[in-house]
């Protein structure tokens, strides 16, 4: 089983090619500018390293948010275009669940992404990636009842957070048998409507 894995939902990018549960290509590093011009070259580099082409993969897994709106759109657009063009299976992965693959010695993991103005995208998972509190756009303190039994993981240096160390193979194994989506219907999961829509909702209330 050959899998292309993409996470462009934050500045910490993963492009991985996984064959039979092993990495045959792994890029995990920061990309802070011009991400849109750097992901396809990375994918091209991945296939330069192996003896097969992009046409030979079985599945694409793409992180579809929450996170950087632009970042998520880059990964999702690439993934759905490949899946549609080459008729490949496509599965979406939550960025928060991916953060929760970080190995911790507490009962729970609380993955968080700074959403500004005191808000975060956050959730609570256990060590087997079971959802305790699902991904939401919330205030930092609204998960405080879990704080004692949890480790907060975030790239954004939030209060009491530790840096994530994501385990892509763990999440790939968990979702490898998820049912495939129609590529046309794959879209980012922003968890937040736009400011313009918020204003319109308020006005109409």
């Amino acid at each position, binding site marked *: 089983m050959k899998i292309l894995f993409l996470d462009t939902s934050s500045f910490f990018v993963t492009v991985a090619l996984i064959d039979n549960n092993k990495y045959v290509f792994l890029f995990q590093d920061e990309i802070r500018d011009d991400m849109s011009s750097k992901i*396809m070259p990375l994918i091209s580099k991945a296939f330069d390293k192996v003896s097969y082409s992009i046409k030979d993969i079985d599945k694409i897994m793409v992180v579809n948010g929450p996170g950087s*709106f632009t970042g998520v759109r*880059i990964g999702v*657009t*690439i993934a759905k*275009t*490949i899946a549609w063009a080459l008729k490949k299976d496509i599965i979406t992965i939550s960025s928060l669940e991916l953060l929760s693959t970080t190995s911790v010695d507490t009962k729970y993991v609380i993955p968080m992404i700074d959403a500004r103005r005191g808000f975060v995208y956050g959730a609570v998972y256990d060590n087997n990636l079971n959802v305790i509190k699902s991904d939401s756009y919330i205030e930092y303190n609204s998960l405080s009842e879990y704080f004692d039994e949890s480790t907060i993981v975030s790239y954004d240096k939030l209060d009491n957070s530790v840096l994530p160390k994501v385990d892509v193979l763990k999440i790939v194994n968990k979702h490898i048998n998820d049912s495939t989506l129609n590529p046309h219907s794959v879209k980012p999961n922003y968890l937040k409507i736009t400011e313009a829509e918020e204003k319109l909702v308020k006005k109409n209330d």
Partner: protein
Amino acid sequence: MNKDVYILGIESSCDETSVSIVKNGCEDIATVVLSQMDTHANFGGVVPEIASRMHVENITLVIEECLTKAGMTIKDVDAIAITYGPGLIGSLLVGVVAAQTLSYIYDKPLVPVHHIAGHIYANNLTRKMEFPLMALVVSGGHTELVYMEDNYSFKKIGGTLDDAVGEAYDKVARVIDLPYPGGPLVDKLSYEGKDVYQLPLPLDDDTYNFSFSGLKSAVINLVHNCNQRGEMINKENLAASFQSRVVEILTKKTIKALKEYNVKNLIVAGGVAANSGIRNGLKKVCDKNGINLTIPELKYCTDNATMIASAGYFAYKLGRRANIDLKAMSNDNLK
């Protein structure tokens, strides 16, 4: 006999997701345009984040529909032409990244196209462009006179110093309470009125530059003063007066440029080329001065991928290529 060249064009610079296949730069084989206008109308203008979101949702659907309509696959095309800029960066990114991906998968050349070059080459779908020519570019973001000696030789001889003509139309529409997008409504309304309001002729000087902010301010002041006096403004007459000033200055400077550069061919490009006042005004002065005027069909005036594929054909012929690290650019000079 030369082999036919098919170019797949992709355009996503603002609020239209569009894909087209054009043969030999002039024959529209299939075009799909998905406009988001109805959505943005709820907000009184294009909301960039919403536009980007809609592009991602629709991009593969629009590509597929175009291919189905053409009865072709991407394997059948010679190159992929993509609008890399200028435009809304988040919107551009979606098309650019999809085009990079298709170029990589199918090993097809990627041809970068400037959005305004696209508007200019839209004329090829109506009549083969003959050089040298003068291009009057009129849109929501541009008002320029461009002299072209040959394909992709763009010499900008004048441009707007402030508002673009389309911008001025939209602002005037807002002042007289017309719904978004108001520019075309001002055009329509102007036919029901008379040019009776005293408005200034904007930047009536020796340059080829334009300025519409003064004219726009004059309209705002006029409406404001009327309101203060408790008088009703006659919207039809105001639209007619405004449009008549705009047409007058555009035609005046365009004819001057044609004469000075000794050019017999004029093409009009951009969304505002759909404005009937401007179309009729230019037609009249071109007939009088023996100028060959080409204006794209209405469906090729607003944003579309047909024009990108057409411009892409000539860029392809000139050997212009991009790699899969092509960057989207919100601003870039016409080239």
